[in-house]
């Protein structure tokens, strides 16, 4: 079932050779080919714009009121590229190596190498679009470092890099809308893939304002619908982020790969109470200068500022001297959980650790004093100068922290705790980003391909834009070259009618339950099961229990959910119900996947498989594969394994010590 279609030849030539030999579609034929793009984040907007520029007839869909709102916008820290502008030893190979190693040797070499190759083109393209990256006084681009690497290769725009990149892609997309190459459907949600003779040929979408179902034909369908972190209810994802498009594809035969690979981000603002609706990330870039610690004494109730230096445990620096506070995300998250579980947590919930800027403020203050050639500066002045430097670098993040918590992080250390942030798993795709359903593609976070079992910081933006700007324009053409003789299919075709009826029946079924419990309450319960039993640490017993609980929750949902309002109008509860129903089914698959992967790797930590020091214990002999799940029936999946062959890199235990 799985053919990754990885080109032959040496790793560094694969992509160039592919591009040199792939089939092309001539401009006159491109005009006759229609492409559907679902989702308008970095992957979707860049793909829709680039395909529109090439001359394809593109239809793009997003559930938000404008394509500019997609959740890529919330990415803070930056985007990696192997430019080596800093002359610090970076190269395509190093970015490739760091990404494979960071992913704990569970990603495909060929895909990751291609990603590292095109990373440099992305920066060029974005600069040309007017993305205002941070610059030095000489007018050249600035870089910073991120977790899991020892070079400075991250390009950024203050703490709003995702916003600036998305606006660049959004503007390119709107330009194509103005030129008539792309038709934009905002406030629309895809609810079904239409397949004809086994090939994806369109979608059924619901207009979220009128509630009407619409049929849309496409010679190819691109799902760029992001990740599924909201299965945990509480995550750093936007409220609307959902798995529905990907899940509909899965139900139509697309294999779902590595669903249990979830990234728990170490630096988020902790939960404050039961009312919590989402969690807010504090950029990983804060770990560049901040130091993470907990008190050395258990259940210490003193204020952070009253705890003297020698009674603080800088546990990341202690455990991982080589990388210190800049260890990869999965390692940092587990270390925080370990301290809190052992009773060293801080704050009222005791589920938090400190991220402290006092040292950085002093250090920067002294540098400023030195720059100004001043000696005999009082400590107060140094602190004031240091705060100004920190404000210039991280001001917006500090402001955000203060707004949410009411505490001033310039004066007291921030409290942070890990939270669900990104999902490495997703629809299985081959080298061409095509799923196991011909004509159906997945780009960006929606696919599984590049990050293995753990994603490095500043690599999600890179992958989304790589897929959309530089990969799909080639790989789609290679496949659509065979479609130039297929005329557009009328949406009166029985396959469209059947698909629309299925969607309509499901919606009516949901509306007619008329039960007692709100959609939100089900989502919260699902989230709790997932976080407790399929979160930062998992074990066999918990996962088996979770599967039973989720199956029971599904039955309860389908017999007792209450959705007020009507079908043919704006109905936000119905929108949510459609999504939560899919999350429940996905949750089960995630637990099944976590249960069968009897090893620890990256973000997947099985308590049964760890080293005596508590590090993840991988099992390369038994588990060096991608788990691709095919749906066989309710609660039934068949596992297909794609073996991972490392031809260039030799897998070793990840060591950040």
């Amino acid at each position: 079932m799985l053919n990754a279609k990885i080109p032959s030849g040496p790793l560094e030539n694969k992509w160039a050779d592919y591009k040199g030999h792939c089939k092309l579609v001539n401009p006159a034929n491109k005009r006759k080919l229609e492409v559907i793009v679902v989702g308008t984040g970095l992957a979707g907007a860049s793909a829709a714009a680039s395909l529109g520029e090439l001359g394809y007839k593109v239809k793009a869909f997003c559930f938000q009121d404008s394509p500019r709102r997609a959740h890529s916008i919330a990415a803070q820290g930056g985007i990696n590229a192997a430019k080596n502008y800093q002359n610090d030893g970076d190269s395509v190979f190093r970015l490739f190596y760091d990404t494979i190693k960071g992913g704990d040797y569970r990603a495909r070499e060929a895909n990751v190498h291609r990603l590292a190759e095109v990373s440099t083109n992305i920066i060029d393209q974005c600069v040309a679009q007017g993305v205002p990256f941070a610059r030095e006084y000489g007018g050249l681009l600035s870089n910073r470092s991120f977790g899991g690497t020892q070079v400075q290769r991250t390009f950024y725009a203050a703490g709003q890099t995702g916003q600036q990149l998305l606006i660049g892609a959004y503007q390119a997309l709107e330009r194509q809308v103005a030129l008539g190459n792309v038709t934009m459907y905002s406030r629309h949600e895809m609810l079904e893939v239409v397949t004809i003779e086994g090939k994806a040929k369109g979608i059924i979408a619901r207009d979220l304002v009128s509630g009407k179902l619409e049929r849309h034909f496409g010679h190819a369908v691109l799902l760029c619908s992001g990740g599924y972190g909201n299965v945990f209810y509480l995550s750093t994802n936007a409220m609307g982020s959902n798995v529905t498009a990907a899940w509909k594809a899965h139900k139509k035969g697309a294999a779902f790969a590595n669903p249990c690979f979830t990234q728990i981000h170490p630096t988020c603002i902790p939960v404050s109470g039961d009312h919590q609706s989402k969690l807010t990330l504090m950029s990983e870039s804060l770990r560049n200068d901040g130091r993470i610690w907990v008190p050395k004494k258990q259940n210490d109730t003193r204020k952070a500022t009253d705890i003297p230096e020698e009674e603080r445990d800088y546990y990341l620096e202690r455990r991982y001297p080589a990388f210190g506070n800049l260890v990869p995300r999965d390692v940092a998250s587990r270390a925080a959980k370990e301290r809190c579980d052992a009773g060293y947590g801080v704050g009222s919930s005791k589920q938090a650790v400190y991220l402290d800027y006092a040292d950085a403020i002093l250090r920067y203050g002294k540098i400023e004093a030195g720059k100004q050639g001043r000696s005999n500066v009082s400590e107060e002045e140094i602190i004031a100068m240091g705060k100004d430097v920190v404000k210039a670098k991280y001001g917006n993040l500090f402001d955000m922290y203060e707004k949410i918590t009411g505490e001033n992080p310039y004066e007291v250390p921030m409290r942070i705790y890990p939270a669900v942030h990104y999902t490495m798993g997703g629809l299985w795709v081959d080298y061409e980003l095509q799923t196991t359903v011909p004509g159906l593609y997945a780009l960006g976070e929606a696919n599984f391909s590049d990050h293995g079992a753990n994603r490095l910081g500043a690599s999600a933006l890179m992958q989304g834009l790589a897929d959309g700007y530089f990969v799909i324009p080639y790989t789609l053409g290679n496949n659509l070259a065979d479609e130039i003789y297929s005329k557009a299919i009328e949406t009166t075709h029985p396959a469209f009618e059947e698909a629309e009826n299925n969607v309509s029946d499901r919606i009516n079924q949901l509306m007619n339950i008329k039960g007692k419990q709100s959609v939100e309450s089900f989502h919260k319960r699902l989230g709790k099961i997932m976080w407790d039993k399929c979160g930062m640490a998992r074990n066999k017993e918990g996962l088996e229990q979770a599967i039973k609980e989720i199956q029971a929750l599904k039955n309860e949902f389908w017999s007792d959910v209450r959705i007020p309002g009507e079908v043919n109008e704006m109905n936000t509860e119905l929108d949510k119900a459609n999504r939560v129903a899919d999350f429940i089914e996905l949750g089960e698959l995630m637990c099944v996947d976590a249960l069968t992967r009897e090893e620890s790797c990256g973000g997947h930590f099985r308590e049964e498989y760890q080293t005596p020091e508590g590090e993840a214990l991988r099992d390369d002999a038994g588990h060096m594969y991608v788990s691709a799940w095919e749906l066989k029936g309710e609660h039934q999946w068949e596992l297909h394994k794609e073996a991972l062959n490392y031809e260039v890199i030799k897998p070793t235990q990840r060591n950040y010590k």
Partner: protein
Amino acid sequence: MEHYHMNLNLKVWRQKNTNTKGDFKTYQVKNISSEMSFLEMFDVLNEQLITEGEEPVAFDHDCREGICGMCSMYINGKPHGPWQANTTCQLHMRAFKDGDTIVVEPWRANAFPVIKDLTVDRSSFDRIIQAGGYISVNTGNAVDGNALPINKDNADNSFAAAMCIGCGACVAACKNSSAMLFLSAKVSHLALLPQGEPERKSRVMNMVAQMDKEGFGACTNTGACEATCPKEISLTNIARLNSEYLGASLSADK
């Protein structure tokens, strides 16, 4: 920080759809924590309405971290509520006290028709961008990112303008419902960069024409937009827009 709980009266604008007349409905919510965000307080209200068999209040929101620009409530006479440089989703309940009455309305502007309750249609902003808010560079055309050094001040000012989240609070705050701050932010973002130079004149002319076509009003010069902007987009941008527009109008080639 001391945390507390409060009971509140909410006067919320309810409107079934664009073509139906709306009105205010009053609701009570109890035991609201000062640590909640304003939208989490609305989640509580909606949960309560669903339990009572009523339709929940429709409102736009997505990222809930102040960056997507989707949330848009007019709270006690101010877009995004009482805090400076803030979005509705980042407003927290410690801004209110026990017994308060809070009035919540949608953005009010002809160019932003109400879709339902507190949800409005801001697609006019997308159409303004379509008129020229971009640099015409196809994928693959770019030169090396460091080929063209950019003066740091210009780069920083361009970024400060590009921080606009397109929420529309500036329009909602303006008594003329002018979109000048939004438009000027995009014109400034691109005019300050060398990459934006080739289309500089046509861009400002076309975008202004589209803004007028959408039914936004004229600038009042009172600065309510700047005062309410969650990203503190500066009025300087409107000055720059005016000068760009004048320059382009007087220029022979556009």
